[in-house]
């Protein structure tokens, strides 16, 4: 414990200010004790750790001043951030000070969703969860429990659930985000795009973005490399219905009609093939089924594409030629959140094929091969094997699903088929905003015997829980090591910087305590997480002490491009890049992507598009006091001319009504030239409904609320969500 010190006048003043804050209306339980500094600690100390405001997991150094968390900056040794965090990471200190944080375990008192709680002790809460999980297992088998989780914090809970005997571990990051992209690339190259994406933007001479709005979408390394590419004069080509920030950096902005990317991609490929601009040597060496593919894309002239996607033939030819000119350092970015129209795996496959024509896979300035350090696992007994398998994809109706399908688990929960799913634990993901069709999610919840939510704030999903377990935020806890697959392999430690302000607990502790109550002692041989981490690190010749000091340790960097001696291997059935996919043909799908026109919005309606803001992560950061100051509500972007015709003035407030008569909360209109007239756009994550979240953090409108319709990708079960139409009503 730090020695007690005399309070200086300066510190006394600070403490008074904190006390005044409490008097001014913070709830007693909500005021973090650490606002007052802990135990009279004086001076400055720095603690390396890694960020958790998004899944990128940048390495950082937090600074504590006089016992109070002050700031967090990038770790200069970090291959991801290069010492510069993104705004969310920089504002991450706000997660610790968030006054709406959960402070004690809660047990539901009233009906589900009424948000009426009784605070209980951890023993009471965990005893109840364990007892009810054991009852579910007894009645329905272990598979009747499912775990929804997001991010590295879910590692220990996943371990507990596997040990419990369920294979139903699932994350919305697959079927509501990047799943279709990985399937499209797996079908073509035999490998997915991985995370962080294996995109070598740093060395690209031409970068093509389809809807991907880097700069607003703040994946740190990518944004840094994007700015670098812009700075050194790389050609940027952006196709987006909205003039995004990325579009403003582009030499070629293509204002594409929403939902028609495949038409544009096919005609780009047409130009490369018919003008013989593709990488012939690469295609000859690595391609399978090129002739059939070439014959197919010959049909798709730029003149064919023009009326379909709205991009004129000259622009299509010019941009295709520019891609060829800069190849193989031309990167057609695969995107990340790509669940748009339900044909997303095929669109991603078209992106993969365009990259294949340009020879960019495995090449500098294209897609590199990531690698990771070998850090042995902590030895635990083998997990019990489930005889029934996962519940999400019965009969493999989505034959190319390579991950677990969240909406499949939701369906199984509602229908009881292929077997009953009666209990959910939800970790760090607000399913009501992450999944489309909130009513369906609520229907599934109502069919459950048990819903446990582990979260840091009283999120919307927590509002429906039977038991809520308050977690320490990342700045207050250890987590699993980040053994990252990246161009520069490294291992990183997350460690506590400050104490939790109330009765919150780290997930490793929650998982272990629950595991012990479930009779899973052999799976939790470690007394505490330090012992777990030390064992893993020593297995790799490292130590916890070294990691605590450095935060990140890099490993040797193997070849990452074919040019560097990386062998060209493709884990497809043919062992080659599949221009023609026999796998798809066998299952009755198009072996080469085909264009189908999207449904047009009805007269007077607009397609609802959504995206990211640089200062928020999903619906997880709206209560962060620093980040909410940067952006406390979203607005709906509407083409200025269209808006004037509707009689709207800038900043007028409207409600959006969708095709199913679902109406949004009031939201301000942003009348702007920066968007087409057939769609509207809003930033995701706002307009939350949880009562536990203060009203000033619930502003704006929720896109998720309006996404009642979704188009399921027949290849892999992902949910295309840009298929909803809205009209605007003045408030």
């Amino acid at each position: 414990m730090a020695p007690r010190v005399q309070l200086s006048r300066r510190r006394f003043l600070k403490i008074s200010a904190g006390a005044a804050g409490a008097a001014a209306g913070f709830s007693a339980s909500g005021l973090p004790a650490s606002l007052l500094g802990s135990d009279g600690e004086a001076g400055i100390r720095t603690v390396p750790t890694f960020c958790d405001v998004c899944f990128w997991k940048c390495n950082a150094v937090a600074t504590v001043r006089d016992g109070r968390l002050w700031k967090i900056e990038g770790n200069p040794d970090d291959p991801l951030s290069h010492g510069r965090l993104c705004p969310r990471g920089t504002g991450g200190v706000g997660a610790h000070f968030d006054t709406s944080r959960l402070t004690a375990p809660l047990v539901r008192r009233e009906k589900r969703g009424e948000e009426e709680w009784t605070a209980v002790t951890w023993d009471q809460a965990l005893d109840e969860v364990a007892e009810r999980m054991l009852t579910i297992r007894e009645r329905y088998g272990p598979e009747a429990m499912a775990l929804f989780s997001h991010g590295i914090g879910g590692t220990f809970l996943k371990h507990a659930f596997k040990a419990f005997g369920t294979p139903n571990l699932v994350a919305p990051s697959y079927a509501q985000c990047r799943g279709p992209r990985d399937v499209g690339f797996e079908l073509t190259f035999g490998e997915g795009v991985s995370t962080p994406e294996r995109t070598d933007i740093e060395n690209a001479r031409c970068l093509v973005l389809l809807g991907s709005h880097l700069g607003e979408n703040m994946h740190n390394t990518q944004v840094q490399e994007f700015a670098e590419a812009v700075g050194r004069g790389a050609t940027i080509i952006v196709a987006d219905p909205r003039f995004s920030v990325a579009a403003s950096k582009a030499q070629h902005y293509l204002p594409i009609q929403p939902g028609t990317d495949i038409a544009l991609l096919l005609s780009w490929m047409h130009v490369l093939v018919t003008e013989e601009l593709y990488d012939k040597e690469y295609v000859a060496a690595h391609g399978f089924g090129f002739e059939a593919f070439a014959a197919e894309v010959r049909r798709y002239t730029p003149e064919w594409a023009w009326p379909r996607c709205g991009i004129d033939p000259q622009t299509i030819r010019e941009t295709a030629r520019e891609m060829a000119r800069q190849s193989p350092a031309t990167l057609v970015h695969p995107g990340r959140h790509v669940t748009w129209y339900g044909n997303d795996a095929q669109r991603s496959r078209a992106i993969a094929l365009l990259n294949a024509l340009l020879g960019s896979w495995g090449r500098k300035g294209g897609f590199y091969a990531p690698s990771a350090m070998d850090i042995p696992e902590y030895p635990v007994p083998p997990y019990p094997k489930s005889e029934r398998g996962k519940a999400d994809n019965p009969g493999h109706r989505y034959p190319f699903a390579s991950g677990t399908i969240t909406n499949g688990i939701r369906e199984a929960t509602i229908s009881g088929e292929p077997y009953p799913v009666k209990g959910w634990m939800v970790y760090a993901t607000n399913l009501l905003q992450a999944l489309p069709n909130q009513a369906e999610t609520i229907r599934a919840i109502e069919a459950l015997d048990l819903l446990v939510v582990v979260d840091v704030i009283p999120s919307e999903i927590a509002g429906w829980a039977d038991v809520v377990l308050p977690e320490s935020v990342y700045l207050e806890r250890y987590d699993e090591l980040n053994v990252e697959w990246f161009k520069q392999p490294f291992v990183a430690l997350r460690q506590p910087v400050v104490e939790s302000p109330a009765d919150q607990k780290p997930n490793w502790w929650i998982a272990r305590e629950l595991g012990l109550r479930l009779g899973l002692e052999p799976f939790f041989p470690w007394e505490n997480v330090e012992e777990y981490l030390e064992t893993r690190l020593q297995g790799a010749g490292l130590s916890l002490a070294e990691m605590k000091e450095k935060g990140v340790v890099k490993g040797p960097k193997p070849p990452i491009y074919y040019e560097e001696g990386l062998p060209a291997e493709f884990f497809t059935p043919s062992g080659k890049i599949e221009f023609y996919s026999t796998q798809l043909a066998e299952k009755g799908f198009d072996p080469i992507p085909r264009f189908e026109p999207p449904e047009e919005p009805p007269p007077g309606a607009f397609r609802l598009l959504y995206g990211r803001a640089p200062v928020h992560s999903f619906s997880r950061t709206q209560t962060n006091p620093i980040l909410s100051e940067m952006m406390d509500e979203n607005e709906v972007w509407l083409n200025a001319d269209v808006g004037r015709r509707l009689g709207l003035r800038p900043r007028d407030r409207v409600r959006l009504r969708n095709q199913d008569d679902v109406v949004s909360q009031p939201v301000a209109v942003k009348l702007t030239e920066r968007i087409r007239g057939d769609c509207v756009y809003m930033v995701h994550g706002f307009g939350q409904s949880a009562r536990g979240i203060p009203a000033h953090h619930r502003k704006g409108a929720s896109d998720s609320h309006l996404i009642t319709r979704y188009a399921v990708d027949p290849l892999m079960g992902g949910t295309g969500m840009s298929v909803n139409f809205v009209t605007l009503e003045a408030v």
Partner: protein
Amino acid sequence: MARFAMAIDTTRCVGCMDCVVACKTENDVPEGLCRDWIVQEARGAFPDLRLEIRSERCNHCDHPPCVHCCPTGASHVESFGSLVEIDPKLCIGCKACLAACPYDARTIHPDGYADKCTFCIHRLKEGLEPACVAVCPTHCMHFGDLDDPASEVSRLVAARRNHSLIPEAGTGPRIFFLT
């Protein structure tokens, strides 16, 4: 005497507000206030548009009207780097400087004194860059001495097309936006 300045590359800036967030935490800027901010200016008609994104703050002017109008000497030019600074102890919160500043760069701190960007003078004295410059993920911000022709800032301002804000006010602003 050095004359510290910034050159901000608007072609790289993505308007992510990291500079604003970093300033807030570094300088304990009170809730509801900020010392730097982002301006996005779109020109043209869809789809032929130009967008300029600027990270703006106090221009640490060569001829600072806020200093000239200050009745107490609280607003002053530091000998260190010719920075325009405020001594909170001397400030009476009369807001003359707020009215005089053409850039709207000043606010009143809840403790009653005028407040604004200091170019992180406390960090400069430790050999560090201002927090906003050090954090920027796009490396769009450059800081240095305008009186040193070899400094990065001087070289960028000399080599690249740029503009400052409201130069016609005659304040001699020292933030240059590279375009």
